[in-house]
């Protein structure tokens, strides 16, 4: 399995004693070209890993910001094939930043798992987060993805108890994504004090970096979470900013503020 780009990203942030900053954007929102331009600007704004959302009509784990982003993308013609094509075009210029495709299973199932995996590897995707595939359904995509060389990144949640932990961590690679709240994306604020013990538990159990997301909303919040986690994921706030200002450059400046917040985490803690 090749997790080179992901491993290299965490090796770098570790050597710099800072958390990784992971930015989520919705592929094709508000349209393919703007979305690609935003994606291309992320590494320059300080983003260590890109989570690229795949739009779906029924995003059951997402709050309003990402729901609306998905609707805008679909109205502008987003499809899984076009999101993959976006990654191919991104990789023409940039080969370092890991790209994690995040979405729901049905578009992948509709394309066909084998065809999807072949294309995902070909365009340069590094990992997958598929919200509606728990360990109980590993045969569907997780195991074939690992065979194809892609990391299957698992979501661990506050409801994941000790009994479930081994099955949640089996077959996972790259990093573990800790969902900091019980809720949908962009809802309640993550609380660093509550998150810290969970991160530690996951780190010990998996031996992998642990990134925290779902409730990280501001540079201050990113800094707070960045003190205790190996990486911080921000999605709704970025997607919401893009919707509000409609401007790629302004959104990138906001991403830069978030990155700086996360990067300052360890410094300001001392």
């Amino acid at each position, binding site marked *: 399995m090749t997790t080179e780009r992901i491993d290299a990203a965490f090796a770098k942030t570790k050597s710099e004693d800072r958390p990784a900053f992971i930015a989520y954007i919705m592929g094709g929102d508000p349209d393919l070209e703007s979305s690609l331009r935003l994606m291309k600007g992320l590494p320059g704004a300080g983003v260590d890993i890109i989570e690229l959302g795949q739009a779906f009509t*029924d995003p059951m784990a997402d709050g309003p910001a990402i729901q609306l982003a998905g609707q805008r993308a679909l109205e502008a013609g987003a499809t899984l094939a076009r999101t993959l094509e976006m990654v191919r075009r991104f990789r023409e210029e940039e080969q370092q930043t890991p790209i994690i495709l995040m979405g729901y299973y049905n578009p992948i199932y509709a394309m066909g798992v084998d065809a999807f995996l072949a294309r995902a590897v070909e365009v340069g995707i590094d990992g997958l987060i598929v919200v509606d595939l728990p360990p*109980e359904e590993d045969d569907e995509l997780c195991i074939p993805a690992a065979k194809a060389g892609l990391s299957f990144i698992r979501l661990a949640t506050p409801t994941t108890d000790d009994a479930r932990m081994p099955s949640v961590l089996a077959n996972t690679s790259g990093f573990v994504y800790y969902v900091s709240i019980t809720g949908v994306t962009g809802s309640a604020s993550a609380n660093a004090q509550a998150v810290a013990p969970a991160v530690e538990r996951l780190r010990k159990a998996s031996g992998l970096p642990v990134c925290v997301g779902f409730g990280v909303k501001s540079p201050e919040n990113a800094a707070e979470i960045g003190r205790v986690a190996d990486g911080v994921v921000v999605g709704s706030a970025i997607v919401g900013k893009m919707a509000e200002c409609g401007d790629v450059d302004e959104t990138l400046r906001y991403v830069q503020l978030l990155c700086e917040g996360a990067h300052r985490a360890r410094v300001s803690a001392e």
Partner: protein
Amino acid sequence: MTPERTNTYRSGPDEHGRFGIFGGRFVAETLMPLILDLEKHYEHAKTDPSFAAQMEDLWTHYVGRPSPLYFAERLTEHCGGAKIYLKRDELNHTGAHKINNVLGQILLAMRMGKKRIIAETGAGQHGVATATVCARFGLECVVFMGATDVERQKPNVFRMRLLGAKVVPVTAGRGTLKDAMNEALRDWVTNVENTFYCIGTVAGPHPYPAMVRDFQSIIGQEARAQMLEREGRLPDTLVACIGGGSNAMGLFHPFLDDREVRIIGVEAGGHGVDERMEHAASLTGGRPGVLHGNRTYLLQDADGQIIEGHSISAGLDYPGIGPEHSWLHDIGRVEYVYATDREALDAFQTCCRLEGIIPALEPSHALAHVLKIAPDLPKDHLLVMNMCGRGDKDIFTVADALGEEISA
């Protein structure tokens, strides 16, 4: 993989919650521990005589079961063929079969110590049934309903409020049943500790499809016993309408191993099952996919994006179908056909005039198919149709479709 067992059609689902390739547990990790816990409690309740006794008592004294198996003499004369029997589940408290399942789930929720009940509803029948049972047991009830449906189904919205439920209009997506279900799942993920999600049909992640089927199977168990008593033998044909498919599964399941019984499910054909996709016939016009926790036949485009169904009946207007139906379709045990809006409307009026029964638009689809096949069947052919809901809720829709103005 274990080979398909051929001696019974009633052993599903397997330990992974699958009926063949259909079903499963396609949910976010946050919900997985809850679903496993629910399964454990349900397995326990199923074999607990006190649970069965409690259900039995409420079915008899609160719901009014058993519902009659009624010989529809004039419909039979009208068709001039098969003897048509109606299983009168529209006579249940709250006017539909929905309450059979709701009672079971709410009793289970109380055993699990859950104090807050959430539900999704389309036409409002499941919402009303849930609000009713929550009122009966003093539980908090929150019903998610698409904003479009809230507008279309005002009387049911008011009923739910009278019963003390909070109705949350869902504006996400297009504001219909599937969006309400998404929102209910989002609420559940957020309030995992104290909340029980009462799903209204035989869909969703395992164990819901099996659990809802079991609670609805009272329909088929009664029909079987009633027909044996009345005619001394099993029926020849069963017919039921299908949205998610709970009333149909409830009637069909106890008969699945009686291979001489022909079983027909009737989907909503809307404006016709063709490439315009203005229908809700998931089996006839869809293909397998994954939505709302299970793999099943879905209305979807080439990219796997879900397409909104259309039906004159808000209760059939769902882009999916219970996974067990998908399996029964693929193995050929049950035939699945469809009736269009127009055919259902005609059947609705025929039933009103010939039997003095105002049927819901959902079973009007089943009746439309009965009217198609009954004339060609022999006079000793016994046909049972599930009259799963009464039509009071639909009079505005029907008036509108017939071009008549009545004030709400």
